[in-house]
């Protein structure tokens, strides 16, 4: 057993103390080295990271450009309002939170459905509106209870508003919340940065086509944020630049009168200023209220709109395709003159039918029109004249000539998704059909093309465009809706770029013959009843397009179901000597053009030329008779 030696023990202890002190120095030196590394050598890197932590760039969404009609009437504007928004990623039990909110502000089952739909479509971290347009009282109520609802916030935002509701909706279109497809478009346009704070995107109509004009330039705020991402203060701000305003060629009042003229009927009207191609009215009824789409439509309303047999979501003016019926005849006659196949005076004998290849093509007037020249063939709408003419011209001549008037082609109007329609030709048939026996064009098929039936199928915008070209003496102007774009910052106006007017090179003398006949339609022909007493000279042509093919049987309006009834058509321009307006009208299942479509044209022209406002929708003139039938 070794006994303690106090002195030796103390020495040993003191050595250990020195070792411990040494350990302390080594460890502290290590810390010091680490501090020098972080604070001197790596200082800049960490400085940057601290700044990145602290400063956040917050986009400031620009005000969307406004849309005005040609007279400065506002068609789409912005207004400031409060929304109640939930950020789903910051909440746990969504249903519970919505239930809680419902006790403070009015939340209808509709709102919940709409919210759920938004949730499904939403991008990751965005906040979604559960209620829009809160009243001041609701805002106050929520603010007092905000602490109970983490992840829920009131936002003051600018909202798009279409002040006239269900009016001109097909041409204005609407904006809706950005989805994946919109994102792709934004990326393709290299607009990602500009859209960082933007929630909405033009979905249809002008809102879609002019999205990047209307959107504007986003501003940015440098905001100091805390670890929770809350803004503490604003360090710097670059103001946004509001989107450009659109001024349309549309005359809102004319548009309104045209829409109302349809009453409860379905159909379309397109009115064009022949000298410019500016669209004065573009009607597709029934309309829908574009306001409901802005922050998401609930599934029920969507289903209703989408499944309605009246198809309110279809823009008939651009996407409805109809056989032109007898409105085709003036163009057929012009083709005959241009190609030298007929002279105006040349007469044919109409026995009331035309036999070709063992098949009888009937005229609507029993017993026929007798001796008919070109003028009377248009005024009385004689089918036999055109059966024979079509046969004489041949399908490819017809097709080539009508192609020059823009039929069967997109007109190039500034709304996306325009339909082509069908301008039949041998080549078209070859491409259209698969089976070899169907690819061949039969000469018999040309006969009904002559009266605007058969494969013929055009959109109202094409018919209006062709009519305007005729009214404009064969000079083609591209139809367009936007007259000019106003830069909100400089006030500078820029006209939209259009191809220059293109002269088809038709003989004025030929055009005058056709115009004379169309004036005749409205004075002594099928349009005379509708235009009785008009204080201006107008030119027109009625048309009736078969929906239901009559296989030799008599057409009895009463016996045919409504949706199989003929479409009523009318084309017109006025004043005839110097046309300032040309239009085309289709009334779906309206019956005869003279009965349903011509009275609408009368109201529209009366307003546009004389300022006369109708006091009721255009009447249905049951007594009017289309020479084509009976």
């Amino acid at each position: 057993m070794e006994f303690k030696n106090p002195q030796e023990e103390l020495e040993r202890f003191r050595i250990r103390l020195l070792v411990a002190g040494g350990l302390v120095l080594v460890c502290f030196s290590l810390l010091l080295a680490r501090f020098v590394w972080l604070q001197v050598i790596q200082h800049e890197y960490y400085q940057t990271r601290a700044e990145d932590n602290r400063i956040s760039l917050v986009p400031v969404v620009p005000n969307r450009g406004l849309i005005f009609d040609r007279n400065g009437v506002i068609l789409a504007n912005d207004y400031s309002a409060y929304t109640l928004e939930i950020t789903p990623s910051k909440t746990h039990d969504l249903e519970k939170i919505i239930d809680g909110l419902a006790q403070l502000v009015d939340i209808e089952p509709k709102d919940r459905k709409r919210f759920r739909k938004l949730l499904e479509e939403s991008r990751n971290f965005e906040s979604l509106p559960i209620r829009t347009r809160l009243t001041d009282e609701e805002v106050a109520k929520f603010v007092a209870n905000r602490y109970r609802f983490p992840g829920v916030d009131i936002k003051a935002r600018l909202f798009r508003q279409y002040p006239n509701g269900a009016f001109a909706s097909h041409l204005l279109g609407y904006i809706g919340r950005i989805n994946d497809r919109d994102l792709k478009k934004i990326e393709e346009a290299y607009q990602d940065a500009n859209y960082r704070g933007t929630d909405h995107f033009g979905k249809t109509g002008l809102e879609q086509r002019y999205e990047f004009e209307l959107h504007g330039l986003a501003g940015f705020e440098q905001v100091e944020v805390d670890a929770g991402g809350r803004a503490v203060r604003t360090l710097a701000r670059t103001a946004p630049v509001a989107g450009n305003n659109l001024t349309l060629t549309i005359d809102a009042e004319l548009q309104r009168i045209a829409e109302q003229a349809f009453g409860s009927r379905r159909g379309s009207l397109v009115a064009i200023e022949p000298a410019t191609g500016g669209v004065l009215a573009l009607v597709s009824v029934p309309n829908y209220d574009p306001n409901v789409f802005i922050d998401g439509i609930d599934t029920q309303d969507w289903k209703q709109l989408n499944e309605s047999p009246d198809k309110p979501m279809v823009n008939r003016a651009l996407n409805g395709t109809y056989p032109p019926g007898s409105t085709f005849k003036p163009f057929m006659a012009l083709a005959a003159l241009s190609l030298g196949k007929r002279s105006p005076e040349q007469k044919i004998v109409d026995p009331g039918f035309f036999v070709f290849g063992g098949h009888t093509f009937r005229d609507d007037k029993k017993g026929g029109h007798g001796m008919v020249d070109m003028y009377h063939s248009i005024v009385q709408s004689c089918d036999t004249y055109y059966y024979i003419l079509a046969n004489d011209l041949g399908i490819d001549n017809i097709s080539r000539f009508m192609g020059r008037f823009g039929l069967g082609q997109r007109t190039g109007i500034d709304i996306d998704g325009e339909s082509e329609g069908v301008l039949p030709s041998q080549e078209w048939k070859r491409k259209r059909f698969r089976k070899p026996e169907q690819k061949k064009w039969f000469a018999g098929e040309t006969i009904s093309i002559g009266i605007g039936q058969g494969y013929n199928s055009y959109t109202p915008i094409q018919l209006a465009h062709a009519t305007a070209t005729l009214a404009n003496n064969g000079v083609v102007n591209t139809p367009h809706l936007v007259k000019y774009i106003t830069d909100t910052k400089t006030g500078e106006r820029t006209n939209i770029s259009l191809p220059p007017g293109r002269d088809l090179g038709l003989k004025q003398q030929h055009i005058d013959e056709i115009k004379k006949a169309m004036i005749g339609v409205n004075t002594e022909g099928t349009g005379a009843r509708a235009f009785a007493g008009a204080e201006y000279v107008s030119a027109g042509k009625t048309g009736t397009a078969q929906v239901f093919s009559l296989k030799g049987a008599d057409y009895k309006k009463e016996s045919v179901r409504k949706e199989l009834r003929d479409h009523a058509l009318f084309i017109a321009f006025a004043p005839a000597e110097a046309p300032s307006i040309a239009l085309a009208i289709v009334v779906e299942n309206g019956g005869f053009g003279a009965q349903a479509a011509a009275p609408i044209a009368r109201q529209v022209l009366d307003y546009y030329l004389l300022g006369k406002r109708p006091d009721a929708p255009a009447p249905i003139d049951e007594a009017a008779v289309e020479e084509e039938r009976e």
Partner: protein
Amino acid sequence: MNRGIVFGIRSLVQRLVAPVDMPLLLIAVLLILLSIGMMGSASPERLNTQLINVAVAIVVMRALAQIPPQRLMHLAVPVYLAGVLLLIAVALFGDISKGARRWLNLGFMRAQPSELMKIAMPLLLAWFFQKREAMPRLRDYGIAACLLLLPVGLIARQPDLGTSILVLAAGFYVIFFAGLSWKIMVGMAVSALAAAPLAWNFLHDYQRSRIITLFDPEKDPLGKGFHIIQSTIAIGSGGIFGKGWREGTQAQLEFIPERHTDFIFAVFSEEFGLLGNVLLLALYALLIGRGLMIAANAATLFSRLLAGAVTMIFFTYAFVNMGMVAGILPVVGVPLPLVSYGGTALVTLFSGIGILMAIHSNRMLVQK
């Protein structure tokens, strides 16, 4: 009469001050002032509570400074036994808070018995080695190790890795100063390294993830690595001179977690920079140096061992905390001594200072 009162006050002050070691007190007060300054930046609303904590801790210090080490020795065994019993009680009936069973509800107050062990442990081991008549032999070290590992094990199971490391370190310092042979220490170090993979299996998931996070904090920047990343950014962005008091963006915008407790050093370092850090290290070095000096001159083996171990506790606290905040040690719940908010640690640390003062006033009177 006036002179009488003045004399009376002066003698009272002298009696109050007599056992107090001025250098130690000065360093402690400087650290406390620094703590109050940081509290004013990191968490002003806690300033008053912390001042009360400081007052209580100084009273405890003053009380302990008066107790002669011989009397403390008598307390060693009962305090240790009480501590172990309380730890067992915690394991059986303790309250759970933040996933760990650390608190014992005594009805009138909640106590954290593990804190007591930080002082009780070196006290007991110092007593143990004092009691050996002969040079301690291997068996004695074995017994000491068992006395140490019992409470450490109980604390580690709560789980409270930070405190168990501190208690383990405190006990180990006593054994080290008592003269454990270098061979054994090297052997232990080697076997500890070898056993590390085994120990891995006994760690809780959160403890493991802390160690993983240490080696690669960027792997989980928003989760477990967030604390370390943000605190190193705070330190690094502070630069040489710091951003200024209450100007630290990382601290003021709440990117630093636990910024008034375990991570207060990040706030300090961001606002006062490398110069501040050097000052802080210097203060701790002075404190430890003074403590080791007191240990060197202590009268008895018990006093020496206790003073040495208590001093090194300060080192352990400071090194582990700053190392963790600077990202070179894993995140364990160890506060920055005398600076972090919290009454318990403050009382423990000032108790240590009080004991050092008591040992100092009872130092060897004969100097060679």
